[in-house]
């Protein structure tokens, strides 16, 4: 009895510590976001206010938020179906030298992004690819490892018998994809899309190097605000703005996955 209780207590403590580890960095951010004045010896801000938010808005946080959202959405929209197709092909073992193909698809994870972006920037300029298009293409490639791996696992666990059954019952190839295959892998698709969205949402290096100032995303705004001698409140507001949408999305995706279990 006591052993069980001890294990439970330990588990609870562990989970609490983990939650703290994740939430603790957010506490100073929250404090800074609404601190109009917070000088060194004080434990808490001396003056509360919304100056940080006003400054962030003035610096273009609204537009950057939209740009980031759009960039993440476009990357997710392109990388998810590509990853799903690659994942299905790899899971079916019909790809010759499948392991080698997988290694190539995963290579963006291993290569230093700075070097890749810098090298490809030259190539894209020579090819005459517009800056925004270049950013999207590179980010889609960077997102592919995540979407491919996620979907490969989903399709490996997927029973093709469902599709055979649907076909024999009269469903066309496309009807089978739409009404059987996609609903069955929907939780994995949502997860893959979420990861791809994050790649676009949080990217800094590719946007700076390849985008050439044409795209002002939230990470760029955060970085410039943080490196300048501006107000810490503004940086905190911008940082919070970049954290909250992914967290909200994660909750949505998580609940979607749970509903299917």
């Amino acid at each position, binding site marked *: 009895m006591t052993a069980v209780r001890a294990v439970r207590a330990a588990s609870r403590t562990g989970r609490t510590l983990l939650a703290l580890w994740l939430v603790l960095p957010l506490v100073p951010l929250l404090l800074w976001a609404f601190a109009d004045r917070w000088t060194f010896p004080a434990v808490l801000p001396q003056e509360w206010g919304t100056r940080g938010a006003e400054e962030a808005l003035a610096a273009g946080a609204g537009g950057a938020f939209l740009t980031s959202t759009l960039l993440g959405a476009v990357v997710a929209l392109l990388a998810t179906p590509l990853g799903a197709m690659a994942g299905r092909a790899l899971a079916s073992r019909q790809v010759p030298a499948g392991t080698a193909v997988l290694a190539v698809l995963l290579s963006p994870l291993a290569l230093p992004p700075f070097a890749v972006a810098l090298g490809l920037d030259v190539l894209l300029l020579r090819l005459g690819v517009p800056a925004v298009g270049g950013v999207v293409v590179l980010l889609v490639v960077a997102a592919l490892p995540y979407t491919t791996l996620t979907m490969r696992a989903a399709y490996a666990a997927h029973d093709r018998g469902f599709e055979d059954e649907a*076909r024999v*019952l*009269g469903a066309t190839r496309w009807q089978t994809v739409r009404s059987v295959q996609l609903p069955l892998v929907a939780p994995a698709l949502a997860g893959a899309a979420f990861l791809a969205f994050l790649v676009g949402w949080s990217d800094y290096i590719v946007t700076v190097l390849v985008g050439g100032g044409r795209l002002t995303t939230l990470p760029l705004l955060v970085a410039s605000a943080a490196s300048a001698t501006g107000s810490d409140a503004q940086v905190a507001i911008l940082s919070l703005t970049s954290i909250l949408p992914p967290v909200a999305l994660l909750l949505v995706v998580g609940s979607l996955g749970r509903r299917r279990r």
Partner: protein
Amino acid sequence: MSGGALRLAGLTRVHGTGSAPALDGFDLEVPAGSCVAILGPSGSGKSTVLRLTAGLDEPTAGSVHLDGVDLAGVLPERRGMAMVFQRPLLFPHLSVRDNVAFADRVRGVPRRTARRRAEEFLELVQLGGYGGRPARALSGGQEQRVALARALAAEPRVLLLDEPFSALDARLREEMHELLADLRMRLDPTILLVTHDHAEADTLADRVAVLDGGRLLQAGPMRALYARPASLTVSRLLGGRTEVAGVVRDGRHESPLGSLDLPAPVPDGPAVLVVRHEAVQVTTAADPAADAVGSAVRVRPRGLRALVTVEVTGDGGTTTVDAELGPGHDVAAGGTVGLRLPAGDRWVVPVDDAADDPVADGARA
């Protein structure tokens, strides 16, 4: 719903170049409204027959004809068939009702009509009122009933059943057998059934095709196959237990059991005598009508009956004969008994069962 006539001609499927064919020149007639079973051990190619028939795989050679029309190149969804697999494969994201309505929905039937018809088919498999449940909230037997209802709701010309009851326990399997017999009476579908269980084939099918190693070994009504198997392999797949090696001379089989008359003329030479254990009668050692006398070496109870293995020593060695005892009839292990092998139930098959072409070899009778 009434079924169509299916004819399979020379169906061959080779999975990879150089590998042995999974199915080799398979011919089968399934008359409209009949139930034909394909009986074979796992890996015999019997599921391949169904996949080729349904159009899920392309035959390497041969053709599938439905009501006289060659289905070569016809997509699975246009063949007018439906299939029930060993796994129920109910779509987990749909309710029971929408699973059964699936075939109608993909054919463009309005949702309301499709759902009403789905309820009718659920009634038919005795699951009326289950329509609103999620597909994953059913027991194994219920799942397979829904799978059957879903296939029937597609109003197939041919219903393909791929070991549909193998994963169920004995009682549920029997219930499903009764349900299928009932559905056959009401709907008159054409059914092509695959099974590894000869008793199931016997219960459900009008005719049986025995398949092994991708080749058709024998086809015919189950009773004929039980009584006159074409080879030792067929006899074993049908649950035959007694195999007595010997030689045929002048129409008599000579073995440790003695010289036994055969019901039909057989060419001379080595041959194996097979007798169904159900046909062998166990009497006393003193019975003057006994064909052989031996000692019971093993007795295994099977409900009210028992299966007894009798060891007989005679000219040229020792052999064993299996016999099923009548209800209540008992034999002590080690006791001496007489055996009657009714002349009409004796049958001989060729010795060399590994012959390259068992179909052509046939029975020597």
